[in-house]
């Protein structure tokens, strides 16, 4: 490596364009050293610089009275009352998870945990949004297996419960699965830690695992599409050590209870480089590192290797000089490496020394300010053709059985049964029990009687985004909002993970811009700001014939809401005697519906239209009715429509349901399987009061059946579909795919 001369060709290998390299030369006024080139290339990679996405991200709404820190910090911070804050973010580990599914997913979980506890929060919940290729593709099974084991292997060991998430299958993810991991933590609002370095002369401390040659150039890899050389990029895979992460969490939280910390930042993508550059840059100071003091796992590492290593489970901390002993004692107790590797300077430069030689000396301001920023060309906006006439070839019963067992709807128990969802003693609603997971928060770790709770969800419907990115982007936000309302929570804020193809292709950039526009519109309409997020571009696979396949655009939304009293949280389980009330308007929207895809084999039409005012009104109504104690079961309507939701509620509650005749004017398949938005299905023992309240709130509501305690769903025409059959169909998919 060291033998290479630094020139434009090498810069290109490092992912810098000629023009970007020219800019490096101008900033440096000389040919950069290899280490300097490495630093520029990772800091200016898509992953770290957001060069293609920044102009669009800036359009998102990020503020509200309850937002304490929006985008720009390691994670978003919102006030949840009682002096507490929820800190949360979602992050992708897509490319690593294709190369090595177990370690890719595991280190994804580890990375997002660090983004959250680095701000002072104890992580209390993990979620994950996963997209896999076609179940028919033989590779899919290996990837699902590795990813699920990796998420469980890491999350279970660190002792953070995995409480929710989502999974889709689609051939566009065959060569490029999506693994988006979300962590939520709790901190006191007066003890939130930021990354801006300060205090000339203050020591810079390295803690955690030692540095090896792992993942060098991971950040640039995450910013490149996969071609035939994916194989060659393999040695960059990192291995996670969840045990060390657990120790790191405890040690950092213990240190955070003292007054030793000036600034703290995890070493994520681009490790020591991005953490030191960002800490100094944000603080408007300089930083000097002496790499001789970096704890090293391997012999003979160069400055370049150490600066770019992505070894996991490491943190960088600026501490008060008079607290060094306190800090060291804590890390000794937890048996973690602790080393002073540098100090804060007033130079405004990052200076990296190794064996007495200055290996890098870069002015920080230009490195940040002159980072490339692209307003990439946009293709034409795609306007989907409305769905033409369809016919129903199989009837309601057969369609329900097919849908309930289809890959995007089938029971995910096989997956969540491998995730520890109860550790910590906070989980009020486990996976599968409600539309959103619910975890109770306590003011201190032993404050056993708090009933304040968080509701958490992740949502996106990529096929909608593919058909119409604006509607799809907005719909993802609306669905997250709905899932939170459905348990009775007040939605507060979202994190996002924007997974798209190659931004240099105008049609992809158009998807990206439109999806963000849609998200922004929905977030504004619902008072649901974006407080953190992550962008993952170049999610494409090069085909042997030279063409590329882009993933379905997937702006995954992680939603967070708050419930004053966890005892009020509503799940989806029906009980005999309850009436089923449908909230919202049903027009029978079948464009891009799962019914269309699974029954007719078509992915066509426009996604269901959104009415954000109705979303807001209906959501508020559902929350109010839950708060009034009128609702015993609740479920939002999404994939698969009304009848799928009814079946899910019936199976969860082990009770049959007798269904009323649909309104006239709609074909039965439109009524039962349409995916119209802003709808909820509520189980209530007080249907009259509920209908009266709906009427006065101007919310469409209608009784559609009642839970009769029988062992099947009885359709209006008299056909009964037994719960046993439904359950068998629902439970079959994952075990058949994975355990065969």
């Amino acid at each position: 490596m060291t033998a290479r001369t630094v020139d434009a060709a090498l810069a290109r290998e490092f992912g810098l364009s000629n023009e970007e390299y020219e800019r490096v030369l101008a900033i440096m006024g000389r040919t950069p050293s290899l280490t300097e080139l490495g630093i520029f290339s990772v800091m200016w990679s898509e992953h770290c610089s957001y060069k293609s996405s920044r102009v669009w991200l800036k359009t998102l709404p990020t503020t509200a009275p309850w937002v304490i820190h929006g985008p720009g910090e390691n994670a978003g911070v919102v006030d949840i009352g009682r002096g507490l804050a929820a800190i949360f973010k979602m992050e992708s580990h897509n490319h690593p998870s294709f190369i090595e599914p177990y370690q890719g997913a595991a280190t994804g979980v580890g990375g997002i945990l660090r983004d959250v506890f680095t701000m002072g929060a104890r992580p209390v919940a993990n979620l994950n949004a996963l997209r896999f290729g076609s179940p028919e593709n033989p590779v899919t099974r290996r990837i699902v297996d590795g990813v699920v084991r990796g998420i469980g292997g890491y999350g279970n060991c660190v002792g953070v419960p995995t409480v929710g998430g989502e999974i889709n299958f689609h051939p566009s993810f065959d060569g490029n699965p999506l693994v988006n991991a979300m962590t939520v933590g709790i901190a006191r609002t007066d003890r939130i830690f930021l990354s801006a370095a300060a205090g000339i002369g203050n020591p810079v401390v390295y803690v955690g695992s030692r540095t090896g040659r792992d993942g060098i150039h991971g950040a640039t890899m995450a910013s490149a599409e996969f071609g035939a050389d994916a194989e060659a990029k393999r040695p960059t895979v990192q291995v996670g050590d969840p045990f060390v992460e657990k120790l790191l969490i405890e040690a950092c939280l213990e240190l955070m209870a003292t007054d030793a910390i000036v600034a703290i930042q995890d070493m994520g993508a681009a490790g020591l480089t991005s953490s030191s550059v960002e800490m100094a840059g944000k603080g408007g100071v300089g930083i000097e590192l002496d790499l001789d003091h970096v704890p090293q796992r391997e012999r003979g590492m160069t400055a370049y290797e150490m600066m770019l290593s992505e070894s996991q489970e490491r943190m960088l901390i600026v501490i008060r000089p008079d607290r060094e002993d306190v800090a060291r004692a804590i890390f000794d107790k937890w048996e973690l490496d602790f080393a002073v590797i540098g100090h804060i300077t007033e130079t405004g430069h990052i200076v990296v020394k190794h064996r007495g030689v200055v290996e890098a000396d870069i002015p920080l301001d230009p490195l940040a300010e002159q980072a490339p920023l692209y307003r990439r060309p946009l293709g034409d906006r795609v306007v989907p053709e409305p769905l033409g006439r369809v016919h129903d070839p199989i009837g309601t019963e057969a369609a329900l059985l097919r849908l309930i067992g289809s890959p995007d709807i089938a029971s995910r128990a096989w997956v969540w049964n491998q995730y520890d969802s109860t550790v910590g003693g906070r989980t009020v609603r486990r996976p599968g029990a409600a539309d959103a997971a619910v975890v109770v928060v306590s003011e201190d770790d032993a404050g056993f009687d708090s009933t304040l709770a968080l509701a958490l969800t992740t949502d996106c419907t990529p096929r909608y985004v593919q058909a119409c990115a604006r509607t799809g982007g907005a719909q993802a936000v609306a669905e997250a909002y709905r899932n939170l309302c459905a348990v009775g929570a007040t939605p507060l804020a979202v994190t996002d993970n924007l997974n798209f193809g190659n931004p240099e292709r105008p049609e992809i950039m158009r998807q990206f811009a439109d999806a963000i526009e849609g998200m922004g519109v929905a977030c504004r309409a619902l008072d649901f700001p974006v407080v953190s997020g992550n962008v993952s571009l170049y999610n494409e696979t090069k085909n042997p014939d030279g063409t590329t396949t882009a993933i379905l655009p997937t702006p995954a939304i992680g939603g967070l809401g708050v419930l004053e009293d966890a005892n009020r949280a509503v799940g989806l389980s029906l009980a005999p005697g309850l009436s089923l009330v449908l909230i919202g308007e049903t027009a029978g929207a079948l464009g891009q519906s799962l019914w269309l895809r699974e029954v007719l084999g078509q992915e066509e039409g426009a996604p269901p239209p959104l009415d954000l005012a109705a979303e807001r009104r209906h959501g508020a109504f559902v929350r109010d009715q839950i708060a009034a104690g009128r609702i015993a079961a609740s479920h939002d309507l999404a994939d698969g429509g009304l009848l799928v939701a009814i079946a899910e509620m019936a199976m969860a509650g082990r009770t049959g349901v007798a269904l009323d005749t649909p309104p006239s004017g709609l074909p039965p398949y439109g009524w039962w399987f349409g995916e119209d938005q802003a709808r909820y299905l509520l189980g209530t023992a007080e249907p009259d009061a509920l209908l009266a309240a709906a009427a006065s709130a101007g919310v469409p509501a209608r009784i559609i059946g009642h839970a009769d305690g029988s062992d099947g769903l009885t359709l209006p025409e008299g056909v009964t579909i037994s719960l046993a059959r439904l359950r068998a169909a629902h439970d079959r998919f994952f075990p058949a795919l994975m355990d065969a």
Partner: protein
Amino acid sequence: MKAIVTVMLKDGVLDPQGKAIGHALHVQGFGEVQEVRAGRVIELDIDARDREAAAARVDEMARKLLANQVIESFKVEIV
């Protein structure tokens, strides 16, 4: 015939398990231990014409299934 496949992490790949074992041995008074690496071993009984044939097949098994060559290397012995 009996084959023994030993699968170890490649050099340079973090070995959390080996590290933890080394640490535990030190704590227990085995200070003379330096580097520790942990791996897996798989013993197979296999029908084959001769040792060469067996070795070739087991090598294929290791490549396809027994080792994850992204992070692991392996060694086959026929005994």
